[in-house]
């Protein structure tokens, strides 16, 4: 069984179609392996070579990877939730109730999205503190640190815009209070608040605006910055590894 699968894979790799997709096929030398990674869209942002001590748990605790996995979970569960959600009032609240009590596995999807979102904020902060205490902001990583700060802000913005969407009391007051903070910015505060809310109070247009931010603009920005972030890890010479990582 194993042998026949292996031979089937070998013959598949010999086909013209496979070779047209994966151009560096028989990776027997280090150069060919490197080219195979560099030439593949899905792999090219990963390093061609990795120091084995950078793969140890204590080097990163995989906090960044876990944040990325949570982002993937949030995208998938979020897209599924979109099939049932109308960004209007009071329908938004009813849709949220439907997801909890009517839709099959709706409560799973909603809670997956909710818990993953809260966990992502937590893990992104843990990731930031961990990188900070390891000195990961120092050259040559200083630009990637700034990209990380942008990602932290995007995570918080995604979390905040998503908070309004269930359209319950908690959502309404959180956004009322939060946007009142905007209006204390001198000169432009009230104008910014008016554009963010689409009115003078949190209402129907606010839900729609936050929805658009939450499902397309911010995730797209987050996707671009995550790609840049991971690609820069490789370009800046890999993860920050201290010599003490060799011990124990």
């Amino acid at each position, binding site marked *: 069984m194993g042998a026949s699968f292996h031979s089937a894979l070998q013959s598949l790799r010999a086909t013209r179609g496979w070779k047209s997709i994966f151009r560096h096929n028989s990776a027997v030398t280090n150069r060919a392996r490197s080219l195979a990674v560099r030439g593949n869209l899905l792999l090219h942002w990963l390093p061609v070579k990795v120091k084995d001590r950078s793969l140890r748990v204590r080097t990163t605790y995989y906090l960044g990877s876990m944040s990325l996995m949570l982002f993937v979970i949030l995208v998938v569960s979020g897209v599924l939730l979109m099939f049932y959600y109308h960004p209007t009032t009071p329908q938004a609240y009813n849709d949220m109730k439907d997801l909890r009590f009517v839709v099959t596995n709706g409560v799973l999807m909603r809670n997956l999205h909710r818990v993953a979102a809260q966990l992502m904020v937590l893990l992104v902060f843990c990731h930031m503190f961990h990188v900070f205490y390891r000195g990961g902001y120092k050259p040559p990583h200083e630009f990637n640190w700034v990209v990380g700060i942008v990602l932290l802000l995007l995570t918080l913005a995604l979390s905040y815009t998503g908070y309004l969407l269930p359209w319950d009391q908690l959502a309404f007051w959180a956004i009322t209070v939060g946007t*009142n903070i905007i209006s204390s910015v001198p000169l432009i505060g009230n104008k910014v608040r008016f*554009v963010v809310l689409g009115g003078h109070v949190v209402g129907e247009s606010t839900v729609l605006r936050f929805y658009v931010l939450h499902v397309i603009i911010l995730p797209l920005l987050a996707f671009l910055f995550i790609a840049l972030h991971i690609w820069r890890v490789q370009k800046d010479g890999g993860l920050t590894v201290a010599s003490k990582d060799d011990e124990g």
Partner: protein
Amino acid sequence: MSDEKTDPAPANGDSLRDVSRRDFLNEITLGALTVAGVGSATLTYRFLSPKVLFEQSTTFRAGDPDLYPVNSVTCLQDQQVFIVRTVAGFYAVSAVCTHLGCITQWKPEENIIVCPCHGSEFEPDGKKIQGPAAHSQPHYAINLTADGELEVDKLQTIEADKVLKI
């Protein structure tokens, strides 16, 4: 650019800079892009500012002045405004707490306005007694309409000592 040496004063007397074609086109392009960028930003901002609001009007009629007895504080729940009538006249005080936007309540037995969320206290004229609110409650513009009703504009705040005399 070495315009001082190679470029003696031009015939018409103006001190023209010796600009290469490439620099000229670069600057023109940069200028055009700046204009286009500022224009797009302004256009987008104006597009995102709604002209028609499907929300409660910020100006409302509060009815006949005689509805309010002298020395009374009346909370208009729907409008989130206190209509206060003193011997001097009328004023309208916001019922939205300046701290974090909760709706304050009038306590007639203690003669104060209290916020249920974090316990800020205000005088009937909106003056802050104790925090956490940082400011006193604003007064809204209040006027009489032609047919003799009170009208309040919640977008216009006025000085606390301005009172509508009737």
